[in-house]
């Protein structure tokens, strides 16, 4: 049976893994080239590296980090942050990524999804969507760009469906409201997206304990769940987490 995936996320700023709350107040959590293979060995099903402060000047630094992190990594590896063109995607994939995550650039130019999928296949294109509940009583979620700093006019469900139609292979869905809080995933947001598309959905934002993962797989209908802080700060281990998921009747890859 296809298992639920547990993905370790490395948010990288200036070459170091960092983690914040609500996308700010960053704390140092280590070297990506050491953390990526270490997480893989201890049971992470996949690794995602997001360059959270990507700029063109830092591009070469990022590629070097990707190369080092991928060197001894033999599980799927996704890289995102600052990928604005097919050339950017090619460079990151050449450096050792298996998939690229695109966010703001896809919002500006949705055809970028199709261009990257056309060259590398849909399975290599993860569209990352940062969503925030609106104050509107209708309960809709809005998509925010630029690392959660800039409001867009887009509604989350419409955007993920468009991304799928344009060739996305997976959706990485982050709840800005829950990011870094440890209060649990936004299962309402996740399930609404998971049933709206026919591609896998990775839930992100809010993981604090094993129970939150059980909830997001059962109630949130997620195919995969991503977390950073719970692993960086040793709150939970992959083996402990996977044991809890197994007890809850969820299929996981174990032993690794």
């Amino acid at each position, binding site marked *: 049976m*296809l298992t639920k995936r547990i993905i370790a996320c490395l948010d990288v700023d200036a070459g170091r893994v960092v983690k914040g709350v609500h996308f700010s107040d960053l704390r140092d959590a280590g070297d990506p080239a050491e953390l990526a293979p270490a997480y893989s060995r201890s049971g992470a099903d996949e690794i995602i590296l997001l360059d959270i402060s990507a700029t063109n000047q830092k591009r070469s630094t990022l590629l070097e980090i990707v190369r080092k992190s991928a060197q001894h990594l033999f*599980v*799927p590896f996704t890289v995102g942050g600052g990928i604005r063109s097919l050339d950017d995607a090619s460079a990151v*994939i050449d*450096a050792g990524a*298996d998939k690229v995550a695109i966010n703001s650039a896809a919002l500006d130019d949705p055809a970028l999804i199709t261009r990257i999928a056309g060259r590398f296949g*849909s*399975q290599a294109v993860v569209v990352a969507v940062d969503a925030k509940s609106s104050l509107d009583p209708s309960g809709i979620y809005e998509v925010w760009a630029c690392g959660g700093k800039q409001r867009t006019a887009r509604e989350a469900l419409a955007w993920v469906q468009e991304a799928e139609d344009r060739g996305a292979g997976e959706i990485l869905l982050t709840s800005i409201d829950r990011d870094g809080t440890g209060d649990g995933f936004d299962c309402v947001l996740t399930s609404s997206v998971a049933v709206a598309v026919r591609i896998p959905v990775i839930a992100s934002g809010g993981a604090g304990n094993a129970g939150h993962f059980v909830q997001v797989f059962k109630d949130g209908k997620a195919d995969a769940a991503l977390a950073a802080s719970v692993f960086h700060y040793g709150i939970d281990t992959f083996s402990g987490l996977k044991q809890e998921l197994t007890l809850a009747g969820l299929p996981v890859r174990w032993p*690794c």
Partner: protein
Amino acid sequence: MIAILDYDAGNLTSAKKAVEYLGYSCVVTSDPREVERANKILLPGVGHFSATSNLEARGLSTVVRNAIARETPLLGICLGMQWMFERSEEALGVGGLALLPGRCKRFTKPLKVPHVGWNQLQVRDGGRLFQGVSSGTFMYFSHSYWAPVVECTTAQCEYGSTFSAAIERGNLFGVQFHPEKSGEPGLAVLRNFCEL
């Protein structure tokens, strides 16, 4: 020397890195002469089935057919395995090598497509590729089309349908999963091929 065939079908870096990590020398190439000299051939591939027409365009199809006839060990990964079948619904106008019978079909609703993630192998016949790899082992899959179970299927997998996860016939090998992305068990499969 292991030749990793470059035919513009996605990412070859991972396969190369894994082979080198295991201590074997390899070269990524689209030069037919270099492929002819190789003592093993790795045919990776993610992306669209129509990319296999690039093999024809680069004069590699004939080289591959000749290598198979000479019994040079060849391992097709993902699309590289599907290419061994007659054709694929993904590009009906592009023929496969037709070394194995049947056509590759798309996963259908209500399944999520692509089939992405770790799924369990049911090993039918370990052959040489699965030495030391037991039934029930998890491997990483990423594909939208699936190949039928045939006589030389050595491992199968379940996702809506039961499909070929690996085939083996003489020195011809194919895996639908990505051994270069499946942790230690994946490396074990790759090592078994490299050591032939």
